[in-house]
């Protein structure tokens, strides 16, 4: 769904501000940035965000912003579904809930009843929680890997609020902290003045242009993403490439094959940290909730298999994905750098 219906108000026409959030710098910064927005004071973000009878996809036409103060927990242990990349101390946090993009395969549609975006403005509380967890992490000899972009695409916000930058700066003097920034954004240039750090891992999701157009609504084009990745690698940042989910459709192998050819030509494969490959998979409850809401996407009306309450593509399709990526990449990327979540 592209935002072509101009009868809708622009995104962030309204900002809902928790009374307790008013005193924070991020709130002031945000309200200055959207000085024409209607400001509505609320006592608790949940009274707006968790209302009954909201329509996620209709709200996507005019996303509202909610500024709130996060209450504990400020940091969460990684789950089985979340890729830990081999880090035994793997955590995630939620500086923002929901996303500017509208990828049709995204679990957020099933997780939240609202498409509006919550920004937690008490960054310091989240930082303190990370510091505390660093000191009590279960494997003290291993670093703590924190995924900061789990329930959102944090870097997509960088021109609105520089939260990714804040986290990178925070990590500077924390020798045992690693950060993963998962993104489809092309806004890397807004961070390109920062000194590259071994501690930061930018994980870019890449898809063929057809998937970008048909499934990853409102995201940057493949070309822009590749340019951003290229710049990040040149500057010396660690970059992970994520082909996740690989979408199965007629001729998907041709499109993904061409995508991999393009990447081999355009990116310096020797300097890619690693690659992850996955297929569409989603918890049964989220899947059914999204399906029921009748999104425009056809992804929820295909034949899938259900394994341990996870809806996913057939074993045959998973094998084909694995074969394609293994064969295409074997001469360019070491085997141990390709991780399959299949």
């Amino acid at each position: 769904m592209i935002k072509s219906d101009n009868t809708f108000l622009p995104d962030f026409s309204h900002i809902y501000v928790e009374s307790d959030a008013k005193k924070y710098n991020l709130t002031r910064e945000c309200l200055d940035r959207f000085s024409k927005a209607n400001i509505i004071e609320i006592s608790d973000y949940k009274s707006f965000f968790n209302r009954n009878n909201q329509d996620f996809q209709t709200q996507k036409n005019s996303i509202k912003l909610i500024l709130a103060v996060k209450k504990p927990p400020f940091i969460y242990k990684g789950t089985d579904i979340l890729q830990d990349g081999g880090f035994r101390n793997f955590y995630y946090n939620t500086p923002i809930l929901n996303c500017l993009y509208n990828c049709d395969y995204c679990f957020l549609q099933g997780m939240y009843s609202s498409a509006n975006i919550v920004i937690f403005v008490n960054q310091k509380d989240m930082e303190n929680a990370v510091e505390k967890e660093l000191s009590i992490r279960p494997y003290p000899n291993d670093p703590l890997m924190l995924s900061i972009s789990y329930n959102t695409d944090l870097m997509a916000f960088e021109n609105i609020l520089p939260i990714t930058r804040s986290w990178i700066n925070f990590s500077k003097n924390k020798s045992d902290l690693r950060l993963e920034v998962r993104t489809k954004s092309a806004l890397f240039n807004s961070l390109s003045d920062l000194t590259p750090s071994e501690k930061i891992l930018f994980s870019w999701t890449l898809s063929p242009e057809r998937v970008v157009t048909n499934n990853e609504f409102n995201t940057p084009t493949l070309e822009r993403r590749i340019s951003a990745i290229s710049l990040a690698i040149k500057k010396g940042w660690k970059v992970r490439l994520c082909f996740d989910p690989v979408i199965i459709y007629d001729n998907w192998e041709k499109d993904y094959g061409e995508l991999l050819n393009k990447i081999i030509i355009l990116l310096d494969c020797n300097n890619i940290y690693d690659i992850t490959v996955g297929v569409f998979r989603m918890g049964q409850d989220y899947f059914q909730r999204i399906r029921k809401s009748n999104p425009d996407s056809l992804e929820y009306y295909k034949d899938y298999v259900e394994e341990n309450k996870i809806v996913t593509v057939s074993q045959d399709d998973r094998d084909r994905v694995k074969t394609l990526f293994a064969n295409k990449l074997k001469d360019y990327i070491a085997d141990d750098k390709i991780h399959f979540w299949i």
Partner: protein
Amino acid sequence: MNFLFLTALKVEATPIIKRFNLEKDLKTQLFINNNISLLITGVGKHKTKFRLKSIIDLKINWDETIIINVGIAGGEKNKTNIGSIYLINKIIDEETGKIFFPDILIKNNLKEISLTTVINSVSDDSFNYTGLVDMEASAIFESLSSYIPCHRFIFLKIVSDYMDIKDWKSINVCSLIHEQIENILKIVNYYNNKNLSNRIILEKSEIKLLKKYSKKFQLTKTQSLQLTRLSENYKKNNAEINVLKNYFKRSPTSKQERNKVFDKIRQYLSS
């Protein structure tokens, strides 16, 4: 889209009835003209809830209905102007403390403000309230929110007083609404947008048909659910599910036969 106007008073309704040429349906008490209808709820939360309950079971297509509450309201002297129309973005129920938020997604030319719904009319303590004050909005939202999503509620309030009125008869309500009728019409035009209707896959008639088939074939609960799910998939990918009628022409004589036919249906819908 269908529009259901709700007003508390007959005098609030009169300019709307005239502008949209609405005629009273004696059976339902609704004033109707094509896709526009109007209900007079009476003053206060209790009357409003009672009147709304009476229309819930009417054959109203709630999937495509937009609720527009139009009425007068008290306003803060320094922040509002008498005669001005406002779009409400937050409703506080003074009695219960509940807060309701209509989703404002559509472009419009109105100023926005919050509203408190009170039990008794306010005539001497305006300083207690921010925004406007009325006596019905929270009841409307609460009564209909199971049927109408947040983005199809519109609350339009016209300031009639600064909460300092001693003689309510001194307010010319009809004239206040009449002065804003073109703004109300504009709102109807802005919201007349198919993208606001409910996102349904199977029409009510199709769901009814599937239920009929399930009963005729004495499908198991799992088979019935599968039939609905596969029909939804089929409709999303191929359009009409009329083709199913060929499979359900003759009732099966045994469970084995039923299962055999159901298997064929499953294969057809999955193809």
